[in-house]
């Protein structure tokens, strides 16, 4: 562009004389691109309603490059866009709608509502669609999905728009535009008192429309509202029914995330009032398609709900057979809440699951569900290659404890002492610790019995340190018993301790120590060995 022409457009852009606008509008007829483009820029820059209107009415003719220039006027063209919306010219109206949506001109929603309510107006339907779209978009912005370049506060805009929509709700009998009610629902969310009042009042003119919107809308505000119901103290059955009837996957995923892995008591109480979930019978997707974490939450949610036992069992079986590991574990754990043969059968089957977590969950429930030969199964599972399963089996066999064994010890025959003792030593996770404590008991009888237990259970070697300590016991009978039993642990450390014991003041202890050392001699142990010597 030449310098004189540039000067002309500088004047036309910046002059405070509004007579520049018609000049610029006439420049839009120029066939020279430089003049056309400069006129566009100047019209955008000038805050003049007529100039902006000229741009709006020509929007459909503009190339993408020229449209980009007009987009610079975002936020400054509201008045012209309002004129465009109210224009009788179809093209100008369409252009305005396109720009309103693109620029997010939410302030024009009230104008659009007025137009939408007037069903006889030729642009009424189009205006209705635009209101719905803008409401959805604003709702998304309020719930975090906003353009960082947009500095407007969506919450403030929402409050203003909601007022217009609430007035439209009051006029519903007149206009009968259900889309406007849906827009109100989408934008209203949990903060709208009117929306809550409508949900609680089946006689309200908008009740059915609102329920339909709540059942189908995937807007963040609607989802937030529905999930909010689950947290409230006094939620109506109607609200819970809406939740139970939603079957779209997006909603279910949000519901599962909301419920989590350990729902609070209030949430559980409300969930227990829901007796069915439409999504369990959804045709377009199934729970096996949920991700692993959601499958886990799904089992938690279903077990907290008031679902019929048969349906719950069937769903948990689906998860157990076709779910992912975490989902299968949670499904197996959820079986705890069920009674009857069905859960027992599933628990038995879950023992064969390839995942140790599922096996462990099933192991913990073997006795609870009275599975046939649960004791035999548990005793086998104590030898499982998976630690998780071994631990679960030991937890379930809590009667196999050292305390119980000690109580019965004196009455048991020698062979039973050994067989039971070996089981107890295997099952009781703290066997060595507890027996070591028993060796330090103030009662001589208890100390002597502990030494016998160590021998009977074959635990002399792991207990060798505590037994060596007993060589210094104040009671010579205990010292002698310890020396006697230590011959079963042929290590250099024990050998050294026994040599010391041969110098004991008690002949009985000396004798026991010598016998033990003699047994060691038979094994031809090196006298000064310091490392552990295996038998």
């Amino acid at each position, binding site marked *: 562009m030449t310098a004189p*022409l540039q*000067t002309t457009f500088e004047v*036309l852009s910046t002059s405070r*004389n*509004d*007579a520049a606008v018609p*000049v610029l509008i*006439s420049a839009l007829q120029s066939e020279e691109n430089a*003049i056309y483009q400069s*006129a566009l820029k100047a019209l955008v820059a000038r805050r003049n309603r007529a100039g902006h209107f000229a741009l709006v009415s020509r929007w459909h003719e503009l190339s993408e490059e020229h449209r980009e220039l007009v987009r610079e006027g975002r936020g400054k063209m509201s008045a012209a866009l309002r004129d465009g919306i109210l224009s009788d010219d179809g093209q100008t109206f369409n252009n305005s709608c396109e720009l309103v949506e693109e620029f997010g001109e939410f302030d024009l929603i009230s104008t659009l509502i007025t137009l939408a309510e007037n069903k006889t107006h030729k642009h009424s339907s189009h205006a209705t669609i635009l209101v719905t779209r803008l409401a959805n978009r604003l709702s998304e912005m309020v719930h975090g999905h906003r353009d960082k370049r947009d500095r407007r506060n969506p919450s403030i805009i929402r409050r203003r728009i909601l007022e217009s929509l609430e007035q439209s709700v009051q006029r519903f009998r007149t206009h009968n535009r259900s889309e406007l009610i849906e827009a109100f629902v989408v934008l209203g969310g949990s903060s709208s008192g009117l929306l809550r009042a409508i949900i609680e009042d089946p006689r309200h003119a908008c009740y059915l429309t609102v329920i339909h919107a709540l059942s189908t809308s995937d807007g963040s505000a609607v989802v937030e509202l529905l999930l909010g119901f689950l947290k409230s103290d006094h939620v109506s059955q109607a609200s819970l029914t809406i939740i139970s009837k939603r079957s779209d996957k997006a909603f279910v995923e949000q519901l599962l995330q909301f419920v989590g892995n350990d729902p609070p008591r209030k949430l559980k109480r409300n969930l227990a009032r829901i007796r069915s979930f439409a999504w369990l019978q959804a045709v377009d997707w199934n729970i096996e398609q949920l991700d692993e974490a959601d499958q886990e939450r799904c089992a938690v949610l279903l077990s907290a709900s008031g679902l019929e036992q048969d349906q719950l069992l069937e769903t948990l079986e689906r998860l157990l057979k076709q779910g992912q590991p975490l989902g299968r574990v949670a499904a197996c754990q959820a079986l705890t809440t069920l009674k009857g043969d069905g859960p027992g059968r599933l628990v038995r089957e879950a023992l064969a699951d390839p995942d140790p977590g599922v096996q462990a969950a099933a192991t913990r429930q073997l006795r609870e569900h009275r599975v046939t030969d649960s004791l035999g199964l548990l005793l086998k599972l104590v030898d499982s290659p998976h630690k998780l399963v071994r631990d679960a089996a030991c937890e379930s066999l809590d009667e196999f404890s050292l305390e119980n064994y000690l109580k019965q010890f004196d009455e048991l025959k020698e062979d039973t002492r050994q067989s039971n003792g070996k089981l107890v030593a295997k099952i009781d996770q703290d066997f060595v610790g507890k027996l070591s404590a028993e060796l330090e008991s103030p009662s001589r009888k208890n100390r002597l019995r502990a030494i016998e237990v160590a021998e009977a259970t074959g635990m002399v070697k792991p207990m060798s340190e505590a037994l060596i300590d007993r060589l210094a016991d104040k009671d010579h009978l205990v010292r002698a018993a310890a020396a006697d039993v230590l011959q079963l642990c042929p290590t250099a450390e024990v050998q050294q301790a026994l040599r010391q014991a041969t110098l004991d003041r008690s002949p009985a202890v000396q004798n026991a120590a010598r016998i033990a050392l003699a047994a060691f001699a038979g094994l031809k142990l090196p006298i000064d060995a310091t490392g552990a010597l295996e038998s």
Partner: protein
Amino acid sequence: MNSTFSAFTLLAQYDRWRRLGDGLRGSGSRSDLSDLLPFFIVLGLVCAGIAVAVQIYKRRDFSKPCDDPQKLLRQLCAVHHLNYSSQRLLVRMATALELPHPAVLFVTPSAFSASELPAQLSKEAEQIRQLGKQLF
């Protein structure tokens, strides 16, 4: 003329002029408005001068908001250093070409091409061509 001058002199030395009638019966309280006529004439001329100056200032002040096509034309002519005769020519061109406003010519280069000129402007064709060259 001489009496007018004397009156001015006396007006300027009002205290002395007032004392001229001292001692003469009845002359001290009598005053004639016609004596002030020259004063009002001068005052009127000063006001008219100020009004003209304000008008001229307003005409040339392009910083105030307005909706004035003539002023826009003057503003554009001023930035392009066009003289009054060029401005007149632009007005004539706009009339001949039936343009809504002469300022439109500043964004219409085709209006300055010889082939587009209406017959009544054929005499000024060269001047118009020069003007077009200056503006585009």
